[in-house]
């Protein structure tokens, strides 16, 4: 398999005047075409900071990219100037943010925002844009997509906002999707629908996915490989089945043991 994205020895600090947070410490990860790499781990362990580094989206300052390279094709993304990155963001590499409101503009109707992303990177007519937007919302599981396209983010529920953002990320058919907790605001049936959509895009177009999640059920459904993070470091990395069957690191074992299960819980109560 061809490697599409390769993070090597990445370290990121946040310098907060009085203290320095070593958010990412010497992280290396490879992502192959059509593959899903899941990143799981402790809250605050550097998952989002790692993901945001790929497109240089950590706020500088306080963020400092201490060291490392992020290879994408012929480029080192960490060395690219802003103008070049802008052509890649949302185009070849798209991002679903942990907090939908950071990527949705509160003053613009969601349909317009998704359309603008498409027009920025593709040569499409206004009419085709409109239908692509509605199609993208429908694919992301938004009911009555034509009406929802005409609404502002604050008029949507948490889960509808998340689906609007998913539609925005997928509308350009990116080669790499970085999805940071993409289904936290979705009920399990819509979540299943989104996971199926992602898998379909991988199988048809070879899209590669970095999936950050706390939900080990989601991981078990879609991950090919899993990296476990703690305190800025990857403590374990394995293909999906062996990680669940035989976790090597103590922390991974404790994560699996602490996962609440539906059946067990109701038996215990």
């Amino acid at each position: 398999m061809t490697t599409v994205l390769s993070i090597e020895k990445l370290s990121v600090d946040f310098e907060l005047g009085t203290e320095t947070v070593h958010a990412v410490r010497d992280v290396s990860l490879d992502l192959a075409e059509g593959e899903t790499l899941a990143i799981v781990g402790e809250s605050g362990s550097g998952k989002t900071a790692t993901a945001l580094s790929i497109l240089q989206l950590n706020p500088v300052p306080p963020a400092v990219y201490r060291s490392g390279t992020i290879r994408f094709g012929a480029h080192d993304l960490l060395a690219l100037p802003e103008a070049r990155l802008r052509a890649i963001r949302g185009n070849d590499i798209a991002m679903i943010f942990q907090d939908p409101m950071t990527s949705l503009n509160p003053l613009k109707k969601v349909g317009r925002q998704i359309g603008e992303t498409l027009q920025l990177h593709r040569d499409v007519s206004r009419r085709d844009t409109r239908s692509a937007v509605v199609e993208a919302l429908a694919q992301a599981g938004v009911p009555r997509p034509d009406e929802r396209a005409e609404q502002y983010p604050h008029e949507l529920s948490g889960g509808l906002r998340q689906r609007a953002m998913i539609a925005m990320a997928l509308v350009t058919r990116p080669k790499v999707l970085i999805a940071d907790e993409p289904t936290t605001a979705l009920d399990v049936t819509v979540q299943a629908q989104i996971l199926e959509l992602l898998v379909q895009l991988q199988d048809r177009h070879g899209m590669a996915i970095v999936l950050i999640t706390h939900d080990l059920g989601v991981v078990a459904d879609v991950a090919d490989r899993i990296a476990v993070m703690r305190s800025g470091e990857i403590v374990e990395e394995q293909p999906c089945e062996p990680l669940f069957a035989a976790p090597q690191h103590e922390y991974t074992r404790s994560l699996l043991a602490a996962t609440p299960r539906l059946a067990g819980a109701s038996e215990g109560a």
Partner: protein
Amino acid sequence: MIELERLRKEFRAPGGRTTLAVDDVSLTVQRSETVVIVGESGSGKTTLTRLLLGLLRPTSGTVRINGVDLATSSGADMKRLRREMQVVFQDPYSSMNPKLRVVDIVAEPLVTHEPKARGRAGRAWREARVDELLSAVGLEPGAARRYPHEFSGGQRQRISIARALALNPSIVVLDEPTSALDVSVQAQVLDLLAALKRELGLTYVFVTHNLAVASQIADRVAVMKDGAVVEIGPAGTLFEQPQHEYTRTLLDAVPVPDPSRSRLRAARSRVAR
């Protein structure tokens, strides 16, 4: 403690289109009870919590808290209720003033309602209480001096929980409070909520998409779809013998943390072969 009677909420868009977000919901929550609301995304869960907190006015129907009707309550009653009812919003970041340090965000309800927490004289007491709360939700004391944008998603969620618990409220409404937490921190937070309930008799209205969490903490679970509560009952009964079709669909779709039992994985490898 909480009585919702035939609540309806319509949102009217400028174009004339209306959304019926909450459709004739009646629900009572007893003192010291945990009612968990699960259900379809967009089914009106958040809207229902905003109605019961008095942050939105219902199109029709009544909300009574401790016998006080929110629509006709006096200013003094409302002030007391605002102290007694606290909330963790679904999107915690947007409910925090980005210019305040965490110590002041968590102390906000203390300063508003507790004279001894105010000003210079109240500083030591205030800061001690904030430290205690932050450590209860698994954050380091150093967090108090930082700003909300300097935290991860799950850390912000915990700041929001600490703030909601600051005043020892009697009712806490939590809208997806643990969705950004790893399972160990989530367990810590759920244990904390359970301990407060035992010690202080707190009442919780808890919205979540995580059915395992729901089954673990709920006394009763209400299932919402299209603005209505389609089924409500004790957690054990509801999860073991779901009556409504939609509840069954939901239970059936819960992903299992075991790749060998994943239907999606199985279907995909069939296609690949």
